[in-house]
């Protein structure tokens, strides 16, 4: 409670400071145009985006802001078109390798100047994800944590506590299996869920830097260190830790195993909380813990997919766009747009206050202070799309046929040779 209070106080202090800064900025009122293309098309994100534009417009009454919201999926194909043809001044996208094609093609503006000074400190947790070739190419506006969501009541009934290392993790799992339940539910039908397991096992076995090098295509998939990751994974598979027939379920279809108590936990992003709560798992039954360390020598690192704003290189009103990016990342705005009644995710600014929600609080704490190794974006955002597809198929196949590991890894290695050139 005290930590919450101090956080709130810090937030208030931060926001008053920021209000001062905004006032100072306000002297230089912006005019002209600002064209924004956004993919925040679901109802809640849409309201957030429109709210941001309204508030920014109030600060700069002479500015003519034109906001176009495009369906999230359609946006992914349209961005290639509009970045080259009629570029807006601000556009949504994703961090890390997902922005590399546009950075390499010279379509995103280098915005390192915005990051100079205080912003780099306030946004320290996501700075790495926005950096390519030593420069920053945009700003984040929201992210969420990944980790183990578990049935607190089952753990209590079996006398288990949150594991702090790999041995405890496995011991907990064995106890759950002895109680005739499965340790983890998983729906790997659409592949990406298995990639979450790979991300964590690899980052805990070999560390963030190795994981980044691997997803960048700099390390062979047949490397012994990769094999060590899979050996750890195989320990879980040999224990039969996962639910049967997980390849038949989507992630949503895998949730019933957890709600009806057949499985005790799930490795998932924070978006799993909402359906689980609706299904009756209140805070006394559902809890969160960080994926524990496996190799004590590597620093903990987390998956925290980050959504971003960028300035296209062909934009017309770059000064206005820069002001908008600064506004988006300000502590005050971050508090507002990531609140439980808005996006319900984590603010990227460490001066912001986090919504009074157990899981968001724990996630913010974890990412701000207990993820020294770095923040990864999730496998299919860190690796190029083509490699991600092949690799995730490999992960799923490995979970079903762990003995075929060598064949699977040599297949991935061949794909690596073809894809990164």
């Amino acid at each position, binding site marked *: 409670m005290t930590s919450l209070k101090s956080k709130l106080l810090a937030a208030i202090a931060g926001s008053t400071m920021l209000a001062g800064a905004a006032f100072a900025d306000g002297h230089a009122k912006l005019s002209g145009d600002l064209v924004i293309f956004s993919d925040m098309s*679901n*109802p809640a994100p849409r309201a957030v985006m429109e709210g941001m534009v309204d508030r920014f417009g109030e600060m700069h009454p002479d500015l003519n802001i034109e906001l176009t919201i495009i369906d*999230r999926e*359609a946006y992914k194909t349209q961005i290639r078109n509009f970045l080259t043809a009629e570029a807006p001044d601000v556009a949504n996208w994703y961090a890390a390798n997902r922005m590399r094609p546009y950075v390499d093609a010279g379509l995103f503006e280098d915005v390192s100047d915005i990051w100079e000074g205080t912003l780099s400190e306030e946004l320290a947790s996501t700075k790495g994800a926005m950096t390519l070739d030593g420069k920053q190419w945009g700003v984040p506006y929201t992210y969420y944590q990944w980790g183990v969501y578990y049935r607190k009541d089952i753990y209590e009934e079996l006398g288990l506590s949150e594991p702090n290392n790999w041995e405890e993790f496995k011991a907990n799992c064995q106890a759950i299996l002895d109680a005739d339940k499965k340790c983890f539910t998983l729906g790997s039908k659409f592949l990406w869920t298995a990639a979450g397991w790979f991300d964590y096992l690899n980052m805990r076995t070999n560390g963030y830097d190795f994981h980044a090098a691997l997803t960048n295509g700099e390390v062979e998939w047949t490397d012994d260190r990769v094999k060590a990751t899979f050996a750890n994974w195989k320990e879980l598979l040999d224990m039969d830790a996962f639910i049967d027939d997980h390849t038949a379920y989507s992630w*949503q279809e895998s949730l019933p195993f957890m*709600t*009806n108590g057949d499985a005790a936990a799930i490795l998932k992003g924070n*978006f799993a909380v909402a*359906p689980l709560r*609706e299904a009756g798992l209140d805070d006394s039954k559902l809890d969160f813990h960080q994926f524990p360390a496996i190799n004590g020598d590597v620093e903990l690192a987390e998956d925290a997919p980050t959504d971003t704003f960028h300035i296209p290189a062909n934009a017309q009103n770059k000064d206005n766009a820069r002001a908008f990016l600064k506004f988006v990342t300000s502590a005050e705005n971050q508090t507002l747009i990531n609140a439980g009644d808005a996006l319900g995710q984590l603010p990227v600014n460490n001066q912001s206050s986090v919504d009074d929600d157990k899981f968001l609080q724990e996630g913010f704490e974890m990412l701000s202070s207990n993820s020294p190794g770095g923040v990864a974006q999730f496998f299919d955002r860190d690796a190029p799309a083509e490699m991600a597809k092949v690799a995730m198929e490999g992960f799923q196949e490995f979970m079903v046929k762990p003995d075929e590991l060598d064949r699977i890894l040599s297949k991935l290695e061949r794909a690596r040779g073809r894809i990164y050139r």
Partner: protein
Amino acid sequence: MFPTPLEKRPPAARTMYQAVLPLALVVWLLPLLAVAIFSIKPGADFTNANYWGVPSSFDFVDNYGQVFFNSDMPRYLLNSFTITIPTVIGAVALSAMAGFALGIYRFKANIWIFFMFVAGNFVPFQILMVPVRDLTLDMGLYNTKTGLVLFHVAFQTGFCTLFMRNFIRALPFELIEAARVEGISEIRIFWYVVLPLMKPALAALSVLIFTFIWNDYFWAVVLTQGPESQPVTAGITAFNSEFRAMYHLMSAGSIVAALPPVAMFFLMQKHFIAGLTLGAVK
């Protein structure tokens, strides 16, 4: 040649039939029933794997309220009407005229033009996907309702013309000859003699085309995007958010989207069945 009517079969076969029919009906309707049941369940029932059981709470008002007041569904429904109705009018009007020309006048290329209309029906429409998309893009009609309407009119006119031509051929030709003897102009013959006789065909075709176009998903996805132009069949996927699919809302949306063609069917049942058989049986 025809199967023996049921009344003439042995009693055992009749009992068997009566027992199996309801069963087959239930199995046949099971997916629809599932959607209908899901549309009044809360979202939590999906997470709890309560797929077939009694709803944990009765959320009819909630779900349908969400669909009508808190989503783009009304917009999508309106789009569907503004796409379907002009298409029906356009396709039926064009094909009535084309059918009149092909059915009444004897000229050399008659049969070839008719074959072209018929052959068009045999082209699998999927292979037209890329060229049609590029065409609409070049014409500035991509992502507009006009583009979708124009394409549907062009594509449906082929089938409609086959239908209309055969129907007009079956009319007694003496009626037209009689009118000509009276010295009535051709356009007035079409308007005052042929069109009134075609009423059953017009009604049947309208109902048929209405359901075809309303239920079209393929072209809706290929040629349009977003709530400003997409019809309801494509709009239902808007209930898939970034992470979660809202199955209960999608079910409610599907029921709403299916209502107009179903209502159309029950109101115009007679014409519908006539429409399905009219082109084939002369």
